[in-house]
Structure formats: structure tokens, C-alpha cells
């Protein structure tokens, strides 16, 4: 389901950070949000997820859905009702749960136990993590942890993905690998995806991108 941002405006106590008139992110499309640190890239993401620090003032509509009738407005809903999969540069796996439990925790729906466990195993297999169900997150490598955290988000059936510099902490080789994996998943699951980064190379070549907080008057350029 495509995601639409309308009349978004986010301001810190000092200045306006983000202004967006209208922006549509299609299914399976990655929208890159670029800009230097402190420019408000992450604030845009937090606003979409509904977890923006109250010291910012923000307004604007977030819609998701195919056509006008079935479209849902998200910006008035609580963070957990929005079901937008959020990911950070730290994998933030729950350290008190095993890999399998981490995945199960996010999984929605009321399928029988066997089905749930089966889906977890299938997902892990897809990510080359077969047999990792009972491992502790601390025993995984950085790349494996990142993959598990993406799987956890995907299993929660999100309406869209919000990625906050998801590749920043990985070394170059892993970065390449994980990037390909993420974009593959985005295409396969047909999710609209908002990706915050300060590296152009983190984005697929064909993707749309906006830049935040670059000009002195903080107006955004929409390319």
C-alpha cells in the first residue's frame, strides 16, 4: 500500500527542519532522506512513527492505502497502532530473548503454534540463518544481528518500513550485502520504504530522494 506524506512540517525550537508539501512512496519503492547530521532527517522518521520528542513541534498528515476509500490516516494514531516497521543503525534486538523469541514477539495474528514456529524458521532460512532459533542475540555477528532485526520487523506485517541509517554501523563488505538483502525484501514484500542516510551510495540507483536542512533557510529540495 503506498504511503503519502502531506503538508508535513517539523520545527525545532530554533528553526524549521523539514517541510514537505506532498510526497508519495509507492509499493516496493525506497525514498531516500538525505542531509547532514542535525538536519532533521531522523525527526521526520520519528514523526512518521509517532515517537517524535515533544520538544519538536510538528504537524502534517500521513496516509497509507491504495485508493481514496481504503486509505487510513496514521498521524492521529498511537505508535503501536500505526504498524510502521522502524529500524535503527543499532539492531536493538531484545537481549533477554533468543533469536526465535525476538521474531515471535513481533509476530501478529492468531495462527496455531506450529504455523508460527514454521514461519520463523522459513524466515531465518531465507536470511541464511537456519538453525539460529535458540541462539542468544549476543552470540551473533553484526551482520547476522542486523538481518535478524530486519526479519523481526518484516514478521510484524508492517504497512511500511522506516529505516534510520540502518547500514551506518556495518563494515563495507557487510554493508553491501545487507543493503542488497534489505532492498530485496522491500521489493518482495512490496513495502513503501523511507530510508534516512547521509550517504548517497546507501540508496538504490533508481530511487527518489529528498534532502533536508541543507539550505540556510531550511527549505527542502524535492528532486
Amino acid at each position: 500500500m503506498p504511503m503519502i506524506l502531506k503538508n508535513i512540517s517539523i520545527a525545532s525550537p530554533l528553526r524549521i527542519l523539514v517541510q514537505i508539501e506532498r510526497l508519495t512512496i509507492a509499493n516496493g519503492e525506497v525514498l531516500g532522506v538525505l542531509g547532514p547530521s542535525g538536519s532533521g532527517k531522523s525527526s521526520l522518521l520519528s514523526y512518521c512513527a509517532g515517537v517524535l520528542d515533544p520538544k519538536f513541534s510538528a504537524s502534517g498528515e500521513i496516509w497509507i492505502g491504495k485508493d481514496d476509500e481504503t486509505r487510513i490516516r496514521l498521524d492521529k494514531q498511537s505508535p503501536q497502532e500505526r504498524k510502521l516497521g522502524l529500524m535503527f543503525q543499532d539492531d536493538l534486538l531484545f537481549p533477554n530473548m533468543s533469536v526465535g523469541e525476538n521474531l515471535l514477539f513481533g509476530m501478529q495474528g492468531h495462527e496455531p503454534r506450529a504455523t508460527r514456529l514454521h514461519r520463523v524458521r522459513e524466515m531465518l532460512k531465507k536470511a541464511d540463518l537456519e538453525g539460529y532459533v535458540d541462539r542468544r542475540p549476543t552470540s551473533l555477528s553484526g551482520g547476522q544481528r542486523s538481518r535478524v532485526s530486519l526479519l523481526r520487523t518484516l514478521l510484524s506485517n508492517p504497512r511500511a518500513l522506516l529505516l534510520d541509517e540502518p547500514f551506518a554501523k556495518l563494515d563495507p563488505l557487510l554493508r553491501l550485502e545487507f543493503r542488497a538483502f534489505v532492498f530485496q525484501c522491500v521489493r518482495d514484500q512490496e513495502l513503501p520504504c523511507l530510508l534516512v542516510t547521509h550517504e548517497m551510495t546507501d540508496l538504490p540507483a533508481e530511487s527518489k530522494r529528498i534532502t533536508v536542512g541543507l539550505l540556510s533557510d531550511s527549505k527542502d529540495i524535492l528532486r
Partner: protein
Amino acid sequence: MIWVSRIFVLILFFIPAAFSMLGAFLGSPSSSGTGALADLFSNYTMGAAVLTLKVGWVSTALAILLTGMALGWFRLAKSRSQHSWWTTGALGTLISIPHLSLATGLLLLVGDSGWLVRVLGSLFPGREYAFQLDHDVGAWTLSLFLGMKESLFLIYVGLPLVDSVGASRKIVNSLGRSNWTSWWWVEWPQVLHGLRYAIWAVLGYSICVVDVAVVLGPTNPPVFALVLWDWIKDPGESTQALVSGGALMLLALVALGVFGWEGALWSLGRFKSWLLSKGKIGKRPLPLSPMLLFILFTLILSVVALVLWVFGDSWTIDQPIPPAWTLEFAREGVSSMRGTLIQTLGLAVSSALASIATVLLWIEFDSRAHTKIATTAVFLMLVFPALIAVIGLDSMLSRVGIYHPSIAVFLGHMLFVFPYVFLVLQQAFHQVDPRLALVAASLGKSKTVFLLKIRVPLLKGSIAAAFAVGFAVSVSQFLPTIMLGGGDWTTLATETVASLSSGNRRWVAVYGLANAMLPAAVFLFCSLFSQRPEGSTCR
């Protein structure tokens, strides 16, 4: 300097601590006779042992549940800064009030012809209300009380842990889960993990507690610590073997308690895993505020009950509150307890100050590696049950032959004051920028000068806090005082317990209240100094 500080810690803490542990295992000097075995494993003691385990588990489980609720509430509260003064202030004051005082207050509140009976009697006259705590065969009052009081300690220890929990709630929310789900499934388990040793300490305390069990516990059978306590008080030769056997048995009970708790925790983990695989992840928060408020209310009413009995006059059983007020008993009490008060203050002030000086000198001068080992030892001492430690220290001191009541009592108090003071100061110590010491050294100042001119002024607030904590710990010590003091030392704690056998409620209240007010006043006074000094380079 480094040697002076090392010798200090060794003499004041480590040798006594090693003594007490060694002594507990070796038993008392005149271990004789196997006839004691029959007494040790009689039906009576076995019943007491089972009851003790129940008290330990019920109270610890309750304390943990309450802690989880309270900490979750703090974590989810929108503006925590509003609560912080209130919580640390109120929490700290309630913690500084000894268990014994609150227990006597609770006795006066819900016990036989207590306040509750009087209120009920005046509201619904013509009926007999009798709550006799020594007939509380299941020791429920004792368990509930320990759970309530110990939860305050766990909350206090857990508050800083809450801020350090990894994996943000944003992630959980984005997975479609509520804040409370995030707390109970993700954040709380991490805090619980950090509370592990504190929980062991709570378990050990509940299993070994004597003074509170005297006040609130049942009598037939009593908890095992009281059985042991009876043996200790009996000076006969044959009981010596019984005492050392009993100490070992108590140690075994603590071990069993901890083992059972860890087992329960493991099963809970399995159960949660199963719930996850079934997809049964609760959404609702547990009903917490009423329960927490009820507990706070009960504890505060216990203190009020003490006040009523001290200052109330000619209060009969059918009146909800005293009809008249008087200062006579308070005045009489204060004049008669002057000697006790001086001894209590002397012990508390000296052990708190000695601990502070020792800890400061030692962390400043000794190497990091040594203090790391020490931290383990200190934690071990916190978990090690008091009753057993005191029995061990007692037997070792008399074995070595340096027994003098004053020294023994002082060392006994140090055994319990030192670990708490160490914990408070050690944390603050490492918040001072370590580069300051390098700067001072490069300016040609010795470590001693740095300690006195820079470190101590910077840590003024924490030193005040450590003093309050050490003071409160010392005031609450019943066992070390009475066992090691050989009758020469009376403190408010020992007198409170002694007053219970007199059966005079007013005396119980007078001593209980004094025992509560002294550490609470010191705590409030010290908290005036506990604000962070301006312009300090604290990270």
C-alpha cells in the same frame, strides 16, 4: 598511605568478613555430641524450616512483583522529573526506617486490640474482633510485611537500572505492541537480571530475619531463624553443637531458597517462550496503582500507629482514636532511654564514619584491580545472611581470643555498614572525571592533597548520602548488637525487641518510634547536602 588504607580495610572489614564465613562453616569451638542431631531434625524444626522457605519465597515474590509494577510505572510516566524528588525522598525515608520499627507499627495497627480492631469496634460495636498474629500459622502477615518493605529496597536499587535498559520502546511500538507489553516483556526482564544479587539478598534476609519474626511471626512453629535464636540464647554446653548445626541448616535453607528461586525464574522463561510461540502476548497492564498505594498507605499508617500509642492518652478499645493527648510518655521514654540512645548513636556514627573514611582512603590509594575484587567480596557479604555471619564472627573471635564486647559489636556493625557505604561511594567516586587526578598530579600535588582538597569536596553530597545509609544500617542492627555485645550494649533495636516481651504497648511504641525517627531524621538532614555541588566536574 597505600598500606595504611589496606590495613584499615583488612582489619575493619575483610578479616571480620572472612572470619564470619569461616566460622559459620567450622562451627563453634566446643562442637560436641551427636545427640544434637535428633533435636536438629525433629518434626518441630522441620516444620519451622518449611515455614521459613515459604516466608522467603512468598515475600520475595511479592517484593519482585511490586517492584516490577512500580518501576514500570516510573518508566512509563511521561514526566519523570516531577516524580524524582518525591520518589527518592519518600522512598529513601521509608527505607531508612528499620524493618523492626515498621513491624512494631504494623503490630499496633493490625495486631490484637490494635488500631484496626478499635476502628472496627467503634464502627460496628457489639462484635468481638481479634487478630492474633502468633496464631497466624501460615506466617502470612510476616511474609506480606517483608514483601512490602523489601520491595522499597528493590525499587531503590532498580531505579538507576531502569534508565540503562537497552532496546528502545520505539522498536516495540513499531512492532505493534503497547508500552506495557514493552515493559513486561522486554524492559523488565533486563532490569530483573540486573537485580539478581539484590534479590538474593532479599531472599537471604527474609529467610534469616529474627527481629521482625519476633514481632509478626507465628510461634508454633516459628520460622527457623527463631528456633536457632532460642538455641543461641540457651547457654548450655549441649546447645553449642546445636547452634553450629542450626547455622549450617539455615545456610542450607538460604541456598535452597536461592536455588528454588532461580529454578522458578528458569521455568518462567520457558513459560514465556511457550506463550510467545502461541502468540499470547498480553496487552493489558497489571492493576498497579491501587495495590502500590495500599502498600504505601499501610506502611505510613504503621508509623502513625506508633505515634498514636506514644502520644495518645486513656485510649480504650472502643474508641477509633485516642480521646486525649499527652507528652508524658514521650518525656518519660526519652529520659529512660538516654543511655540507650547514646550507645545507639555512638555505634551508628562511629561505624558510618569509619566506613566512609576507609572506603575513601582505599579506593583513592589502592589499584583498580584490588577494588574490583573487593566489589565481589562486598556483594558476597550483602547476600550472606546476617544471622550466620554473626554466629561465625562470634565463634571466630572467641576462638582467636581477642574477645571484647565493644570491639566485637563495632566489628559486627562494620560488617553490615561497610558494604552499603562502599556501594554508595564507589558509584559516586567514578563519576568524578579521572583526569582531574592527573591534572592535580601534574601540578605537583600528592594524592593525599587531592583526596582532601578536591575529591572530598566534590563528593560532599554522596558522602552525606553514604553517612545516612550507613547510619540507618547500623541503627537497624539487632542481632550483631545483642549477640556480640554480650549484654553490655543496648541500642534502640535491642530495646524495642525487649519491650515486646513486657507486653506494654506503650513501651513498644515509644522504642519503635524512636528507632524509626532517628535514622529518618538523619536521612532527611543528610539529603539537604545531597544536591550536586555547583561547578563540579562530574560527568
